[in-house]
């Protein structure tokens, strides 16, 4: 997959225990793919809980879903998909050795992730304002169902865990941006951009599942 040939001069980021840059790149990429598998199982537990409770209380999910704002959820979906595009463009820029574009694209990605979190913040605080808290703190009267708290427990857990991943991703993007401004990345070496991109796509994909499962029920 790597475009660089092993005969080229080895990058200064080459670690001692690899025989060449190709091996380092392939190992890093594979490691990230395996890590993504663990992430899917990590979220998988919550998705399994979602399936169980939706089967038990289907009418609750229809009712409670109306409290979520589809418009802002949709905007957030577009924002995240856009950020996935820009991170892919950052990788492409690295492969084409366009060093300035790497930084620009990473910067846009970071900004879009920030927009996502701001919208999320307003969604959550609006619900807190109504008394929609998770679990036993739930005090909203507007949904005529005795187990309404369960839906919102799942909502807060799953979007919250996803939000934590977005924040971690923002930290990684900021780090990459800093490194790219120092000129660390070029077509010979862009492993961190590539594997962070993989992570970012996963965060995006999980949201693409969360959005219809919570916002788009009927």
């Amino acid at each position, binding site marked *: 997959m790597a475009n660089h040939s092993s005969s080229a001069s080895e990058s200064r980021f080459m670690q001692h225990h690899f025989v060449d840059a190709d091996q380092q790149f392939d190992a890093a990429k594979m490691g990230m793919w395996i890590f993504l598998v663990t992430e899917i199982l990590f979220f998988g537990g919550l998705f399994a809980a979602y399936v169980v409770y939706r089967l038990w209380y289907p009418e609750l999910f229809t009712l409670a879903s109306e409290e979520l704002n589809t418009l802002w959820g949709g905007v957030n979906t577009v924002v995240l998909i856009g950020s996935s595009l820009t991170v892919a463009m950052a990788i492409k820029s690295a492969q084409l050795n366009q060093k300035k574009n790497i930084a620009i694209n990473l910067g846009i990605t970071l900004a879009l992730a920030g927009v996502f979190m701001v919208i999320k913040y307003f969604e959550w605080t609006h619900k807190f304002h109504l008394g929609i808290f998770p679990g036993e703190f739930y005090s909203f009267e507007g949904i005529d169902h005795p187990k309404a708290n369960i839906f919102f*427990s799942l909502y807060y857990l799953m979007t919250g865990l996803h939000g934590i991943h977005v924040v971690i991703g923002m930290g990684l993007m900021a780090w990459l941006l800093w490194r790219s401004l120092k000129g660390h990345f070029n077509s010979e070496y862009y492993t961190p951009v590539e594997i962070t991109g993989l992570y970012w796509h996963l965060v995006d994909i999980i949201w693409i599942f969360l959005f219809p499962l919570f916002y788009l029920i009927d």
Partner: protein
Amino acid sequence: MDTAESSSTLNKIQVQRFKPDDNPDKHYLNEETGLWSWLTTVDHKKIGIMYLASITFFFFIGGLMALLVRTELWTPAKTFIEANTYNQLFTLHGAVMIFLFLVPSVPAALGNFILPLQLGAKDVAFPRLNLLSYYLYLAGSFIAVYAIFSGGIDTGWTFYTPYSSSTGGAVTTMTFGVFVIGFSSILTGVNFITTIHKMRAPGLTWDKLPLFCWGLYATSIIQILATPVLAITLALVAMERILGIGIFDPALGGDPVLYQHFFWFYSHPAVYIMIVPGFGVVSEIISTFSKKHIFGYWAIALSSLAIAFIGFLVWGHHMFVSGQATLASMVFSFLTFLVGIPTGIKMFNWTATLYKGSIKLASPLLYIFGFFFLFLVGGLTGIVLGSIALDVHLHDTYYVVAHFHFVMVGGMVMAFLAGLHYWWPKITGKMYNETMAKIACGIIFVGFNVTFLPQFVMGSQGMPRRYFNYIEQFQPFHQVSTIGSYILGLGFLMVFYYLVKSIYRGKQAPANPWGSRALEWQISAMPPLHNFHHTPVIINGPYDYHKPMEEFQLGLAESGNGHGHDVEVTKEGEDLSAE
């Protein structure tokens, strides 16, 4: 890699023999010294040793708790500690032994040290991640220890809801500790899988991979697939306690059985994390000490993967009496029986390897023989517990306790000790006292059986596990069991004594004391800092005892890497005379 370039290297690799140095001046322990070099090391060998020291510490902590529990059970009523203390002790014994000792024992301690050596690599794929795994393990352990002192936990190591979400004490802290340790376990799994895929030496094809590596590979797959589910489950328990989310709490509309499904989806495969790497150790030692090619290489390698796979489909056998559907119980019971097949395949192949071998009964092999007897009992009683009707009777009795101790202590601890004795000369460069090792092995074997055989009997007669008080008819069994636990403890102390003594007083070990053909024995007695001074080239399998030793000590003649996994090493270009 450029195709033309690699095809030009094909058939042209120049190899020469590198004889291992029996007494090297420089090795991985004296090239970089000082405390700081240990704390910041990214060397897989030093990290392995740090794991080894940590798990030994926790093994003795957990063992001490076991002895206190056994002592308390000397009389039917209170012997010397309160019921609540007793509950905390057995909980911590289980949690410490499983999360802090057994799970990291063979993979993180021995595996870290041996895996890159067996692959002919300078290190694991991600050395810094490896160090992070260790520190996460340490941090998680400290959090768990802190939980013990800040209120304690009395839920049993299984943290069943709704009890765990309502009882007092430090359950939230403990689950957080286990969560962090789980993260360490996941990262080790990611690291090992990538290492096995990407870091193999030239010529080391999948069919020449040592079976210990196959065992670690299967274990790592379980670690990366199962551990995240435990992590999210324990996070949910913590949320249940902090926010009252109600997912597992029937009072809030939740379902406690869902917790059990989640928990056992991890914890049953985790049982295989605690035994499959042991299988790998057994395969290595059996072949080395019978001086014979391992019987059924692929059967053993693939049965590890089969166990890992089936292990994900049997979690429901922990829940036969939890009110799951009868049909589900029947399916889980059937699938549980299936695990016996790959396990049986291994046992028969190991026995067949011994057949007509030239057997040298050194202490590692003696521990393996102990493993055979004890694990066989543990495995077969597992089949008994997997049958629904019997399980309803035996569920939560001492029969279950005896069963999993036969598998985990009789199986994994014996395999771990065997591996420790086998690789000790490579790790420390010293030989331990062989006579004492054999005596200790005998004491452990006897002590173990005296401890746990009576538990089968009283379990089948209805003695429930985890009880503080019991009726008087069980007292003789409990007393025999308690005496056995003291003998067992003595055996472990002996092992500790002579192994530590060997570091200071032991004879210098040669590079290859067992005459093994495996790659980790073809380097100096204590490995060099970066494992190999040359790039090793593999033309024979690790169990090809019918071939001469010099064919196993080959490396690239010139510096350069000769790497890329499409390079085929043929014997044409080799030059055995060069030295």
